[in-house]
């Protein structure tokens, strides 16, 4: 989980401070501007690992900013932060070139988890056919899972869940991220389907004295890694 160089383009002072301080505590490098135009030139000039962009900005609006970046060939992972939480708003944000969308107010842990996930993505090879973490081997083509050579049968949902965890191995993923990426849900169903499915998956992949690889991070989410 490397430190990332992050640019925050946010005009609300308090929110910006909240985010900048939080990210620095996580070990990242954070720069901040309150103006859209300045944000655009900074993003174009320097090479940031990640951009956090507020949609409603003075000067250039967030959506426009990202569109301009994408048109210029700049593919820096971008996360929209916004009070505009409607379904259409999220869709238009993603269509403009955003990679993720977080509605204010949010728990900082949620932001931190998504930042890690996006930052990692820029370096991940998406064309992999096999994922391996610890002694787990997931074959994406044959849809087969092996642990220490032992085949494990997975239901489609369990497969998707494990795949997502493995792609974000070492990072904490939140319940919301799992609902969005494994269940395609963009609302909270207020059930513990995630917890239930997670424990079922844990049961399936762990036999006897094999070490637990799926860890619960209290108050935040889950993390798949070799060592606790």
């Amino acid at each position: 989980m490397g430190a990332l160089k992050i640019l925050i383009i946010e005009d609300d002072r308090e929110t910006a401070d909240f985010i900048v301080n939080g990210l620095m505590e996580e070990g990242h490098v954070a720069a901040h501007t309150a103006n859209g135009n300045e944000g655009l030139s900074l993003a174009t000039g320097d090479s940031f690992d990640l951009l956090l962009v507020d949609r409603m900005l003075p000067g250039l609006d967030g959506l426009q900013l990202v569109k301009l970046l994408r048109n210029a060939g700049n593919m820096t992972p971008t996360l929209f932060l916004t009070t505009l939480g409607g379904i259409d708003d999220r869709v238009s944000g993603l269509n403009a070139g955003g990679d993720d969308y977080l509605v204010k107010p949010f728990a900082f842990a949620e932001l931190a988890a998504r930042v890690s996930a996006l930052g990692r993505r820029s370096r991940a090879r998406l064309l992999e056919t096999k994922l391996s973490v610890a002694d787990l081997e997931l074959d994406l083509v044959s849809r087969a899972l092996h642990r220490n050579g032992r085949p494990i049968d997975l239901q489609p949902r369990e497969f998707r869940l494990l795949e997502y965890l493995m792609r974000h191995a070492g990072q904490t993923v939140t319940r919301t991220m799992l609902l969005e990426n494994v269940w395609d849900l963009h609302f909270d169903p207020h059930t513990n389907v995630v917890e239930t499915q997670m424990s079922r998956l844990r049961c399936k992949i762990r036999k006897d004295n094999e070490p637990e690889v799926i860890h619960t991070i209290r108050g935040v989410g889950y993390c798949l890694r070799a060592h606790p």
Partner: protein
Amino acid sequence: MRIPKLLRTSSFRITTAYAALFSLSALILFVLVYSGTSQYMRAELNTAIASDLTELDEIFKTQGTKSLVREIQTRMRQADNDDMVYLLQDSLGDVMAGNMSPQALDTSASTFEISIHAPDGKERTVHAHGIVLPDGQRLTVGVDTFDLHEMHAVILRAFAFSFGITLLLALFGGAMMSRNLLLHVERISQTGRKIMKGNLSLRIPLRGVDDEFDHLATSLNLMLNRTERLVESIRQVSNDIAHDLRTPLTRLRQRLERTQRTEQSAEGLRTAIARSIADVDGILDTFSALLSIAQIESTTARKEVARVDLSEVLQTVVEIHQPTADEKKQHLAARIVPNLRVLGDRELITQMASNLLENAIRHSPEGASISLAGGNDENGVELVIADTGPGIPVAERGKVFRRFYRLESSRSTPGNGLGLSLVAAVAERHNATIHLEDNDPGLRVHLRFPIPTLDVSNDI
């Protein structure tokens, strides 16, 4: 300035154009009839003259001049021949017989028209034809063109009269029609103005004749219906926010104030803060739900309408609520026909189905049976969610879709009362119908998606 307005209407312009067109065709008709009859009558005249001449010539040839003179006199005396004129002159030009005075007859022309003084003193126009007889005599036979001119006059008068009448009628009719149009348009404008002043419940009156004006009025009225509904929706949301968010906010404030007053330990403060954050999250959730519902209600045509695999959506919905049902030891049965397709928004449909199933589970007691069935028939795709819980009394079935509406029996169960409002908004957006029925015991919710037509995205 009423008159210019009348003349400026398109109906008046059209009428004028039509009147001009008719006038032109009437004129053409007139010219044709006039020249046609004229030619015919002249031909008739010429024939009459020619036949007379031929006969007289024949008499001259067979019986000589004296017989000719006698014949001419006989013919002149015939009563029905009084429009014929005859003249026989000798080679010197003196009159030998006839009722035509020998005016300066141009001997080189054989057919001519002249004005003569008839024996009865009247001035007449005569169409005559003359021949020269072998011994130099000149025989002229002519016909009074009075009839021809009379006929011309009659035709002319008839045309002029009808022309005038038609023109007047056209202009009058046009003016009347324009006035009618103006009145109707004015009525529509007036209704519009009254509506803008604030009376949103007014509608444009229909004339009942099912013409384009009635169609226009109907479309405008539909638009007004929608506007009224939207305005009402906004008003309702503001009211609801004020009323139903106050309660949790008040509770939050009370908790914080109580903590401030009484709590001393760091642990106690931490707990209070955690609970307060949870309260705030709950309020924000309600807020988001309200805004979602308002957004769904206000957008008619969705930009991205897609084919949604309803079967897959329902399977996911059952999956996510299974844990809760299991916890309550409820029996959740799903019967989903594969490959059910509907047109719409996948996310909204998922949320709608989730809310319905969540309601069934939440409001049914432990051990209850809940079923979810997805299928299709010739009337469209159907979703039925039934439970064996307390159900909804008939009297309240219309009200449960209102924002924040909670049945007395469920006031204590968690929830903000917005679930069904969202369901109603999404259903309406997809032109789907919802029916609440008695499951005997319990509630049965019957949701039906229509058969998609080509025009789905433009339905109001």
